């Protein structure tokens, strides 16, 4: 029984760890403040098109994660302590905000303000009271004396003490890792948050307050009262679509053309260096055989053997470059947009080549200067063969460097040519320099995206919010590493109640025609043009509702002709629409013949009796 109980407790703790709070919590707040709610951690995240998305960072856990990423073991007790101190810091910020807000401008406050401050400071002090070390230190005569000399109020004094402890702990952890927080170390860990507006036509970065230096875009509030698109607007949209298709085709053609140009240049570059490589290998093998055949030249063979491994390494890296380049050529132009592995491999080859050759030259020089070797004959045995290898080696180095340079030139030309395309593609998700880097101790607790200030946006667009940890600043650095710790798509749509006007055709049925002699209609239903003003609303939980069901209720204004005199009467009533206004049902009153009628409507683009339907707006609902 006891074992079972312990197992249960273990499972509870384990599961508790698994379902830990995420490092970043997203919340939505309407600009009026009437609505506030957390976005779900999984499943669809839907917000109103005019809302504010708040990004709340769990700084305590994030710093712990950053140190772990940097190399501190998860079992290090200092991480737990840092987390505790950071948790207190979050309360600390609340107190500082409160004091700054309430006490900054006036000395006399309502009593409730003192009570609020007392509650907040008690919460902080009671948390500290639980920690032996901190409590004992804070109540020690030295610290009491320090407070006596301080000009801060006690709670601020305590907060400064906590900040000092936290920073000292961070510094100790960084010192253990050999990272100097004052300079840009390639081992330094940075936290970054970026947001991107994405839709079918691509994407662009958007401003996240506190986390980047992008300027806010034009203020656009999506109106609550939307007209259907005019014919001119539809024409403009169609024109845009045609232009887009044409551009796509042209881009594909251009890509193919560039690919062939690129391939021909590439093929012209590589064989030459292959030749020099083969020549080096041949000279090396011949020299080695010759030097090994005579006892006096065997030491010279040793020089070759010492450098054989390096030559092998160069050969292997050369092959990697060749393979990478072929792969790059195959996937062109996409390879340009991705992680630039080819560039890294080129750098590696270049550095390896020069190191390997320098080592060989040094070894030959040392061999030449070796007194013991010269003492036998007065000359240096095997030097001739070593110099032959040197010639082949230097030739290989020179030619391969030319190849590298050639590849870089081609690569640069292509990159330059496609920069306009690359820019839009890369900005889809790349964390540019405008996105700020934060080290431990600097991370803001929160940020927000004000959707009204992100410029042009449409219903159904998505906002990608991603957070990463990076080791070092430069991707070119060999220590550079990026770890994505948060990635969430948020769909923007119209959730708040809004109005929409739309025209359609309905089938009207004057159901009590027997009691009204003015109705001469013989068919059960009559087509009638109708204009509706509907109130619509969206869902924060269901994409299906927003994209398919999309209900609306409102008033209908129609012109049936129930007495068949050729002059339409005026009718008005209530209507309900569904499936993005494609279907409608309702009830109305015909004021011309004083008769009620029920109706159903199908809001699809068709023309009947020479009457064009104005209902195509269902397909162009985005506004």
């Amino acid at each position, binding site marked *: 029984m006891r074992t079972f109980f312990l197992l249960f407790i273990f499972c509870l703790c384990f599961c508790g760890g698994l379902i830990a709070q995420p490092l970043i919590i997203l919340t939505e707040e309407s600009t009026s403040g009437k609505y506030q709610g957390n976005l779900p951690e999984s499943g669809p995240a839907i917000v109103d098109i005019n809302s504010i998305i708040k990004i709340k960072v769990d700084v305590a856990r994030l710093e712990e994660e950053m140190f772990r990423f940097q190399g501190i073991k998860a079992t290090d007790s200092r991480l737990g302590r840092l987390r505790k101190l950071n948790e207190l810091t979050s309360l600390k910020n609340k107190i500082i905000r409160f004091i*700054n807000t309430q006490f900054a401008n006036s000395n006399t406050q309502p009593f409730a303000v*003192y009570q609020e401050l007392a509650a907040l400071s*008690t919460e902080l002090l009671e948390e500290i009271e639980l920690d032996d070390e901190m409590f004992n230190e804070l109540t020690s005569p030295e610290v009491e004396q320090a407070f006596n000399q301080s000009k801060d109020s006690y*709670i601020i004094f305590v907060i400064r003490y906590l900040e000092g402890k936290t920073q000292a702990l961070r510094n100790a952890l960084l010192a253990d890792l050999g990272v100097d927080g004052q300079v840009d170390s390639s081992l330094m860990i940075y936290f970054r948050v970026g947001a991107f507006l994405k839709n079918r036509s691509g994407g662009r970065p958007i401003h996240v307050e506190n986390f980047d230096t992008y300027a806010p875009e034009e203020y656009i509030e999506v109106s609550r009262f939307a007209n259907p698109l005019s014919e001119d607007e539809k024409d403009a949209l169609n024109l845009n679509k045609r232009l887009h298709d044409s551009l796509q085709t042209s881009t594909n053609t251009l890509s193919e053309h560039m690919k062939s140009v690129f391939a021909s240049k590439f093929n012209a570059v590589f064989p030459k260096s292959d030749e020099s490589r083969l020549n080096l290998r041949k000279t090396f093998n011949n020299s080695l055989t010759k030097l090994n055949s005579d006892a006096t030249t065997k030491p010279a063979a040793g020089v070759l053997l010492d450098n054989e491994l390096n030559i092998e390494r160069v050969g292997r890296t050369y092959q990697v470059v060749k393979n990478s380049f072929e792969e790059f050529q195959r996937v062109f132009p996409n390879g340009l947009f991705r992680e630039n592995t080819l560039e890294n491999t080129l750098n590696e080859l270049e550095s390896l080549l020069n190191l390997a050759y320098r080592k060989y030259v040094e070894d030959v020089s040392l061999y030449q200067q070796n007194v013991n070797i010269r003492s036998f004959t007065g000359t240096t045995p095997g030097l001739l063969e070593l110099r032959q290898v040197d010639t082949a080696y230097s030739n290989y180095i020179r030619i391969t460097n030319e190849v590298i340079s050639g590849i870089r030139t081609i690569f640069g030309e292509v990159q330059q040519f496609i920069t306009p395309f690359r820019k839009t593609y890369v900005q889809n998700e790349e964390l540019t320099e405008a996105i700020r880097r934060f080290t431990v101790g600097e991370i803001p607790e929160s940020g927000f995206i004000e959707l009204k200030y992100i410029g042009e946006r449409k219903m159904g667009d998505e906002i990608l919010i991603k957070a990463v940890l990076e080791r070092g600043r430069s991707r070119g650095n060999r220590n550079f590493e990026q770890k994505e710790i948060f990635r969430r798509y948020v769909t923007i749509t119209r959730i708040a109640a809004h109005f929409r006007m739309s025209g359609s055709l309905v089938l009207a049925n004057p159901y009590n025609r027997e009691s009204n002699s003015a109705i001469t209609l013989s068919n059960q239903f009559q087509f009638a043009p109708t204009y509706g003003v509907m109130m619509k609303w969206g869902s924060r939980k269901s994409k299906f509702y927003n994209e398919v069901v999309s209900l609306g209720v409102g008033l209908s204004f129609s012109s049936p002709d129930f007495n068949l005199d050729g002059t339409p009467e005026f009718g008005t009533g209530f209507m309900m629409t569904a499936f993005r206004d494609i279907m409608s049902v309702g009830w109305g009153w015909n004021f011309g013949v004083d008769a009620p009628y029920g109706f159903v409507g199908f809001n699809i683009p068709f023309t009947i009796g020479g009457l064009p339907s104005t209902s195509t707006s269902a397909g162009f609902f985005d506004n």
Partner: protein
Amino acid sequence: METSFPLILPDLTRLHQLNGAENALEELKIFIKQYISLVILGGFENSTLLLSNGNKLCIEATAHPKQRILWLKSFEEISAVRPFLEQVLKESFPDKEIYMDNIRAISFEPTTQKPTYIIYIDPSLSPDPKDKRKRISTFQMQLAFNAAILKTISTDSTDNPNHQPTPFI
């Protein structure tokens, strides 16, 4: 009724004493009715520093203007008010065992004049494990004042001549 109480030291403007043992009880009752008070009993180690810090808690920018400390230093004064203090402590903390010999300080809220927080001479003697930190210190005096403020239902605001302008943090 606004009554002035003598200061113990001229520069500690929120640290008061009684006018002798004769009217100690009556004066104590006036004091705790008039102020958000912390009543400290007897002498203790490092008292100069801690009382100075306690005074600082009452005049700092975020302190309520009515925060005051009353220090009953003499045995006679303490003896005169001891039965009253014991009674109100027992009424307000019915679940606690009250040993008056182990009480160092008590905070009071002015509306009902009930005690709100106890600081002990030796907290380890208290059977309640939650009291183990409650030895006199600036930390505990701040908690005592906070408890009194939180329990106060309402209070009149008065001018606070020593109230400092709030620095922007």
